[in-house]
């Protein structure tokens, strides 16, 4: 029976090319957009190289200072603040401090390269899971001695030295200072804002005064909890520690906010700060808003499909009448239309998947974002499949059920009232 339904579905789709095209386009386009958005999201916030242990990591990267006159200051925190109040935390397994990256000029002969430079401590290399093509990470001793050593990415090795082999030990000039290359790593996507750079060097070689006691600076803390379950404990200790941070100018400053957030919640907190005043990560707003948007986004084409399907099934009212007259039960008819719809939506799903794959390939290939490589993973595919079947059932069940309840004589007259 299923086979003959499928055969019929296929025939109907082929014979109603226009309808099929419209439906398929609606489904596959929606799915494509959804998949691309999810892939972006996953790329930016999922567990990807080198932040593979993302489930155990929290970030302290956005400092907010509220002034008594109502003013606000939003900057990254200073090295001092992180070093004095975050590094000594006892619950985390490890705390790393690194600077934000900045484009720094470098010259190969006459050619100017803009290299993104980041200053890091040694823990940075322990917490993050870099793949070394050769050499090794920046060591504790390097940081202590303010050694002029650098880890560079593969692209920089190729551009600067013309090769990514045997580069270790050679010298790269960044900011008119020579650094000895100690390691070459795989390229890190630019969307991984906390770890990405072209060149990483010891934090102690920074021209900044690390001892400066200002609250604001240009640094971020990366904190690795002992386990994913341990993250809330780390965050609790972090919050306590922040209460002890003295304001540098108590006359004008009211209070400061610095939180240890998961990668996504850090952004959520910034995004929802007008509502939450940084006091919460804002997920209680963001989840329903994003969920609502996603639902709306899926609901519109779904409703459209229901609409198309209702008129399509009404149009086939006489067919339903004939089928009933020759012994089809209501259940069989609902089954037939469901199979037809699920088949159509799955087809749309596959097309959407292919479109999304092509779109992501194009986006990755265009290098709009440095070293970005978007992927469709199994999880996304499973979601897509689920969404697709949801579409199929939703858009098929109602009209089919309605029509299956008609008397054959009514259906034959085409009065799908």
């Amino acid at each position: 029976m299923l086979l003959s339904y499928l055969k019929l579905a296929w025939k109907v789709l082929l014979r109603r090319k226009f309808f099929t095209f419209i439906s398929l386009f609606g489904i596959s386009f929606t799915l494509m957009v959804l998949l691309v958005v999810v892939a972006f999201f996953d790329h930016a916030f999922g567990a990807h190289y080198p932040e593979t242990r993302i489930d155990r990591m929290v970030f302290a990267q956005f400092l907010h200072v509220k002034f008594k006159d109502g003013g606000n200051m939003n900057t990254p925190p200073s090295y001092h603040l992180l070093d004095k109040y975050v590094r000594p935390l006892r619950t985390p397994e490890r705390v790393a401090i690194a600077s934000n990256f900045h484009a720094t000029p470098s010259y190969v002969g006459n050619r100017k390269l803009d290299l993104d430079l980041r200053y890091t401590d040694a823990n940075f290399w322990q917490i993050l899971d870099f793949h070394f093509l050769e050499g090794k990470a920046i060591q504790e001793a390097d940081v202590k001695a303010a050694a002029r050593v650098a880890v560079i990415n593969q692209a920089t090795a190729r551009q600067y030295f013309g090769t990514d082999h045997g580069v270790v030990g050679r010298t790269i000039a960044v900011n008119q200072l020579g650094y000895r290359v100690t390691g070459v790593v795989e390229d890190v996507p630019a969307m991984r804002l906390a770890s990405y750079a072209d060149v990483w060097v010891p934090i102690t070689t920074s021209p900044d005064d690390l001892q400066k006691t200002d609250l604001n600076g240009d640094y971020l803390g990366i904190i690795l909890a002992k386990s994913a379950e341990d993250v809330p404990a780390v965050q609790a200790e972090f919050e306590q520690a922040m209460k002890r941070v003295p304001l540098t100018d108590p006359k004008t400053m009211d209070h400061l906010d610095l939180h240890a957030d998961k990668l996504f919640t850090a952004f959520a907190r910034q995004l929802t700060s007008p509502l939450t005043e940084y006091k919460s990560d804002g997920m209680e707003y963001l989840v329903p808003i994003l969920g609502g948007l996603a639902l709306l986004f899926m609901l519109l084409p779904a409703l459209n499909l229901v609409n198309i399907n209702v008129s399509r099934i009404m149009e086939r009212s006489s067919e339903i009448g004939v089928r009933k007259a020759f012994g089809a039960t209501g259940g069989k008819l609902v089954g037939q239309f469901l199979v037809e719809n699920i088949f159509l939506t799955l087809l749309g799903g596959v097309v959407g998947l292919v479109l999304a794959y092509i779109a992501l390939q194009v986006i990755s290939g265009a290098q709009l974002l440095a070293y970005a490589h978007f992927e469709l993973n199994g999880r996304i595919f499973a979601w897509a499949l689920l969404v697709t079947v949801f579409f199929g059932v939703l858009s098929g069940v109602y009209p089919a059920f309605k029509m299956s309840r008609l008397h054959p004589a009514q259906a034959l007259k085409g009065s799908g009232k």
Partner: protein
Amino acid sequence: MEPTLTAPHATADLISRNNTPMIRLIDIEKVYQTDTIETVALNRVNLTINRGEFVSVMGPSGCGKSTLLSLMGLLDEPSGGTIEIDGRAVTSYSDKELARVRNQKIGFIFQSFHLINDLSVLDNVELPLLYRAGTSGKERRQLALAALEKVGLSARTKHFPSQLSGGQRQRVAIARALAGTPEIILADEPTGNLDSVMGEEIMDLLLGLHRHEGTTIVMVTHDENMAHKTERLIRFFDGSQVS
């Protein structure tokens, strides 16, 4: 076959002669209600069709012949009265049982064919068998091809209804009603769109089914000649039986 041997084996004839009612209409009323007007299509009709009978129904346009047939074929519910099929009141049937009766007992030939345009001729004819449990795809195909053979359309199995003439469509509709070898055939002007030669052939086909298989047939027709070939002629006028 020797003529002398036929008499003892004429079982079909015996069935057709027995007087058990196949379809009984008791005090049937059918009123069509639209927004503005109310049409009484059938008015207190009492009618019994016996097993194996071949009955023709005549009457002017709009007198309720198609309505009568669609009630007999369980395609619609009467506004009043009782329909019995094989001695059992239709109101006592569940939705599933109704579907089974329509599928196994009844073959309907619609006045306006009602072929499914998205399906090929063969698939259209296979339709009644599709809803019959335990019929394999191969069997369906064979039975459908045999029915198409009977109506002389073997060469058109892969065509779609839109590619056929009116007469050819009518014959597909007839083949579809025959394919499931039902006990009852309800035919609404089955020869209305056919030329006289083809009309005769279809009439002979129905007569043959009636004679050899004992099929009960109710046929609406406007053709007196056709009507007189059947065992019984019922005349309708304005929703009532007049003879």
